[in-house]
């Protein structure tokens, strides 16, 4: 299995859009979770982000917050993550997303080594700014795990350049001011991408032309996919919209349907 970064770069080269799906670990029983991943794989999703819960997820909206609380109360531990990711990464290139303190407490080197050995090829840490990222990036040679950095609207061009140079695998472009998920009362209307996004994309393209850029936060509909593709992004990350469709006993059909619509929107935008 190629790494997530290689997969995304390959698709960028051939002009194909990518869809990265986020599902919080521990919100479904292991076998059911893997069944969901099987369905996403069959539909043509590009990669998977396995969420690991943290007690105080400040960048998350209500859906992922609830998912984290639920995963913790079901007793989803690091050992369960290590047990899950070899299976997910057999199906889809896999990233792990969680907060800095989870890595800090376990040790950044040891935890990256552990997940790298189980097939994980990237980590996404929403509270790790570029200034603090070297402790992660320095482990890459040993562990093979990419450290994906995020860029947000409002970042001045010098900062965008710095992030584009230092991110690994791809650049995670935050769509707007706000937390994850679609409901965010006072945030800007998610249907209108902030004008900063095209400026940021332009800056990234000049700095590092081959780097894939995926847009995330509040992405939930085929029209979002088309808009960000038209804007020049290589694809999208969808988390809350998928997570909201998961229930422990419930059907996986709604998840499948949404993934199908989003993949279709990508293919249409590929032309």
């Amino acid at each position, binding site marked *: 299995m190629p790494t997530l970064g290689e997969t995304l770069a390959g698709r960028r080269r051939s002009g194909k859009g990518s869809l990265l799906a986020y599902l919080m670990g521990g919100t479904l029983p292991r076998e059911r979770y893997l069944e969901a991943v099987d369905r996403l794989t069959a539909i043509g999703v590009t990669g998977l982000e396995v969420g690991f819960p943290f*007690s105080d997820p400040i960048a998350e909206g209500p859906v992922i*917050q609830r998912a984290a*609380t639920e995963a913790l109360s079901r007793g989803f531990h690091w050992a369960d993550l290590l047990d899950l990711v070899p299976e997910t990464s057999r199906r889809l290139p896999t990233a792990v997303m969680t907060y800095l303190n989870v890595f800090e407490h376990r040790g950044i080197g040891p935890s990256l080594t552990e997940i790298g050995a189980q097939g994980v090829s990237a980590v996404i840490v929403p509270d790790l*700014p570029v200034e603090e990222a070297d402790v992660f990036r320095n482990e890459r040679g040993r562990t093979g795990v990419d450290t994906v950095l995020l860029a947000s609207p409002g970042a001045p061009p010098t900062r965008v350049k710095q992030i584009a140079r230092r991110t690994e695998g791809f650049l995670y472009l935050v769509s707007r*001011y706000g*937390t994850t998920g679609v409901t965010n009362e006072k945030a800007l209307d998610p249907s209108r991408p902030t004008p900063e996004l095209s400026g940021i994309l332009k800056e990234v393209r000049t700095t590092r032309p081959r780097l894939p850029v995926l847009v995330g936060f509040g992405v939930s509909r085929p029209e979002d996919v088309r808009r960000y593709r038209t804007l020049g992004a290589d694809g999208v990350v969808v988390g809350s919209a998928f997570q909201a469709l998961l229930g422990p006993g419930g059907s996986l059909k709604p998840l499948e349907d949404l993934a199908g619509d989003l993949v279709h929107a990508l293919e249409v935008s590929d032309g």
Partner: protein
Amino acid sequence: MPRRYGKYGGAYVPETLVPALEELERGFRSLRRDLAFRSELRTLQETWAGRPTPLYHASRLSGEVGGAEIWLKREDLVHGGAHKLNNALGQGLLARRLGKKRIIAETGAGQHGVATAMIGALLGFETVVYMGKVDMERQRPNVERMRLLGTEVREVTQGTQTLKDAINEALRDWISNVETTHYLLGSAVGPHPFPTIVCEFQSVIGREIIAESRRRTGDVPDLAIACVGGGSNAIGTFHPLLPFRTRLVGVEAGGVEGSVGAASLTRGTPGVLHGMMTYLLQDAEGQILPTESIAPGLDYAGVGPEHAALKDSGRVEYTVATDREALSAFHRLARTEGILPALEPCHAIAEAMKRARGMRKDERIVVTLSGRGDKDLEVVAALAHPR
């Protein structure tokens, strides 16, 4: 301006907040040297907030306890009833300078919420305060005060429903509204530059202690004691005293006997929460533990990063007082001095009573009495007269 205190501090935040933190640091740097700002701050401190506050020799309490003299720095007499206004006033003026129209805050005991509500009214901001559901129930009078001052109080029902979760929600609001909104963080915690800003605006406490202590007794105190939750009244007390010979002691909430309480420095380990590297109460996998204390203002799993560094360097000694010790200090102070203190500084008073006995009569202890006890009357009365 240093981003770290030793290895502690830093700014571990989502990217969206980085430009706002940089703007805040630039604004603060230029404002702290601005003579017009300093003069406006001083005028409001004197004519609106009631500064300087007295340094009071609690002679009846000292006599009963025996040993060293116990003096109280009367931050309970600041307008609004707590030291929190010192910081809210400074940051409010800073927010106005940054052109913000809206301020948000977290509150535990409600004291910082009330201070923010007062500043919001004074300076004409739209004001929103996040408060845990548990804290809203146990500090009801402060919820009413905030509402009467025109502030919207938003109940936080996530997690432990206390201060930690109120900070989470305030940070999420800030991430969503960062262009129009200033986050008026109330304790010496959070990402850089907040711990530095809060320390600067609270240091008026320590500066006044030094000046008044010298004027009245010719010297700085032998020992200064303050309670530590996030640590804002303590850092305001300690920071100006760091170069002097005064011994410094911070007192954390021990909770009920045998519990972890909320003593992050005494019982925690380093980690990252709310944008800072500091001592945290956390489990084996880095999940933040629920805390508990009779004093909502101390009920927090983290602590300001400067305290973490001061603990490691040994310049400040940190210890705990239990709920029971704090309550007993409450009653002792009420009956000997005619002062109803907030439950938070009762932890510091309890420590002062322990230490005074072992000290000489000519030695002096200053305790920062960070707030008054009106907000706690329901809780204390229920324990004093159980039904």
